[in-house]
């Protein structure tokens, strides 16, 4: 099942820094199209992992499988050493994986504060909240303001502004703030700079580094090579439904990355990261020792 034959119990990597989120041998078929062909994935703690790949390479499918938006036909996903099966993005969210979608998933007519708590509104803690289901609007407003101020995104008076009156970068900032406010384990960002101008892209990249400094690992999906090489710790290159290689941006050039992506260059051997030991037979039974 695993062509590279990863070791379960051996190396030091799993002792020092057990990976946060891993996948082995993911397969997803759409009719005759194989979107994922035994794809592997590793996210280490506190890192920014960029995922790049040509259109149709299957990187979106990979991410969707990781955040529960689709169910893979085969393979396993492991989070903190435990096998997981998310049946929906809601379940992934409950497990601490937050996604900043490319379309941001904001309600344009609602205010900044309302958008921060969209889908997980908080009720008042007293009887009014219990029996009349009244929302704790002031509490949510205050926390939204604190979160945004901590990331240096908005001035205080903007909190009641409808999101549609904000600039693209500010909207992106709100989506990122929402993800970091509730993401306890992993933040996934899908093309966060694709729709932005130069200045706003810069601000969002700073934001990404800021989030990383808080210790949250980030999966960054992007087409923008300069951005990827600027912020990523490791770069996962996806090709033909598989992980072709994982490279470090200081060891390879952008043109190397593009060459691997398109198949013009033979992918370098990637150092195997073992599955975090679950202590469960189900996992070690699947992954064989070379």
């Amino acid at each position: 099942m695993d062509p590279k034959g990863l070791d379960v119990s051996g190396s030091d990597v799993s002792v020092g820094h057990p990976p946060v989120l891993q996948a082995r041998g993911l397969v997803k078929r759409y009719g005759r199209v194989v979107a994922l062909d035994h794809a592997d994935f590793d996210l280490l703690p506190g890192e920014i992992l960029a995922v790049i790949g040509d259109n149709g390479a299957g990187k979106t499918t990979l991410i969707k499988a990781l955040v529960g938006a689709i169910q893979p036909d085969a393979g396993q996903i492991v989070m903190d050493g435990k096998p997981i099966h998310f049946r929906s993005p809601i379940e992934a969210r409950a497990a601490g994986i937050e996604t900043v979608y490319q379309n941001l998933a904001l309600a344009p007519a609602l205010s900044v504060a309302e958008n921060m708590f969209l889908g997980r509104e908080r009720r008042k803690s007293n009887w009014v909240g219990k029996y009349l289901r009244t929302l704790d609007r002031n509490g949510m407003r205050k926390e939204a303001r604190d979160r945004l101020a901590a990331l240096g995104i908005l001035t205080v008076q903007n909190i009641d502004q409808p999101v549609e009156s904000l600039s693209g970068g500010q909207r992106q900032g709100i989506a990122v703030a929402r993800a970091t406010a509730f993401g306890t384990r992993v933040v996934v960002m899908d093309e966060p700079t694709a729709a932005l101008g130069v200045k706003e892209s810069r601000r969002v990249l700073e934001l990404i580094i800021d989030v990383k400094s808080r210790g949250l690992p980030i999966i960054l999906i992007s087409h923008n090579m300069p951005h990827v090489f600027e912020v990523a710790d490791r770069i996962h290159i996806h090709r033909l439904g598989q992980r072709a290689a994982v490279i470090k941006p200081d060891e390879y050039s952008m043109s190397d990355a593009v060459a691997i992506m398109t198949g013009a260059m033979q992918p370098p051997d990637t150092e195997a990261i073992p599955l975090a030991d679950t202590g469960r037979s189900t996992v070690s039974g699947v992954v064989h020792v070379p």
Partner: protein
Amino acid sequence: MASTTSETDQETALFAEERRTPLRRIQYFLHLYPTTIPFLVLVLGIVVFASIVGDRFFHPFNLSLVLQQVTVIALLAVGQTMVILVAGIDLSVGAIMVLCSVVMGRLAVVTGLPAEIALAAGILTGAACGFVNGILITGLRLPPFIVTLGTWSIFQSINYLYSKNQTLRQQDVEQMASLLQLTGRSIRLYDYIPLEFLKGAVLTFGSALMIVVAIFVAYVLSRTAFGRHVYTTGDDPEAARLVGINVRLTLIQVYTSAGVICALTGWVLIGRIGAVSPNAGFNANLDSITAVVIGGTSLFGGRGAIIGTLFGALIVGVFRNGLALAGLQNNWQELTVGALIIVAVALDQWIRRVST
């Protein structure tokens, strides 16, 4: 890095105090408070008709007559507002209302059930009709316009089949089920609040029920998580789904709630006309949409408020009443209402462009 940060901070600060032309400022203000326009139109209408027609229009009795005249449409429009907020439309509200009133009336008068049971059965009928609308829209993924165009005919036909096209006479309803006519009873406000200008003003229980329901729905929409989900579903269903809102469930809940409100309107209708007629409320569905649209709620979903709808219903009532008192014939009233609709939708389109 530091210089970039301060630059962006400046940009953010600039954004807050960005210079706007006066027109742009008005647009922005209306975007934040979309019910300002219907409120101003209502005030303007009252002032204009008070000055043209004089005391006859401003008489407390006439004003309470306006309220009575708009009660049925206003209550239907409260349900319609919820539906339009989720970017839907319900053409069957009038048919549901009449069907429910017929169910209430016939169960009490013809079948001989206690009036309380008949009333409850009528409300359940409304809920069932709304639920059917919601299931068809979410299950078959058909446009709400088509579904409710179909159910409009279906509910109306069921109404005719069940009632055999017979009207229940006022005396019979009064004798067998006076509870159903409760909504038509009224109190003189002066007896409770002895203020001079309230002399002659009356409030029917039906109007009171409409106001209570409107306040309740306004509360649910603006102060509960369900309300937030209604707005988000109408604004951007894909975003709603991604943040974990059950879009289909929200839609079904909205159409079912609208059905219940239609049933309550059926009760108010019985009070208003005394009898139970399967042919009442012929234009009610379009009139309810008119009230919602004039009230500033966007037909594209996600924007609007109940208070605007009440203003919208009152605007229609005030203009019809005022034009009638001014001696203009019915056609002029229709023409004015038509013009109001077009102005309201044009304004909505303009306000929505604020972000670009």
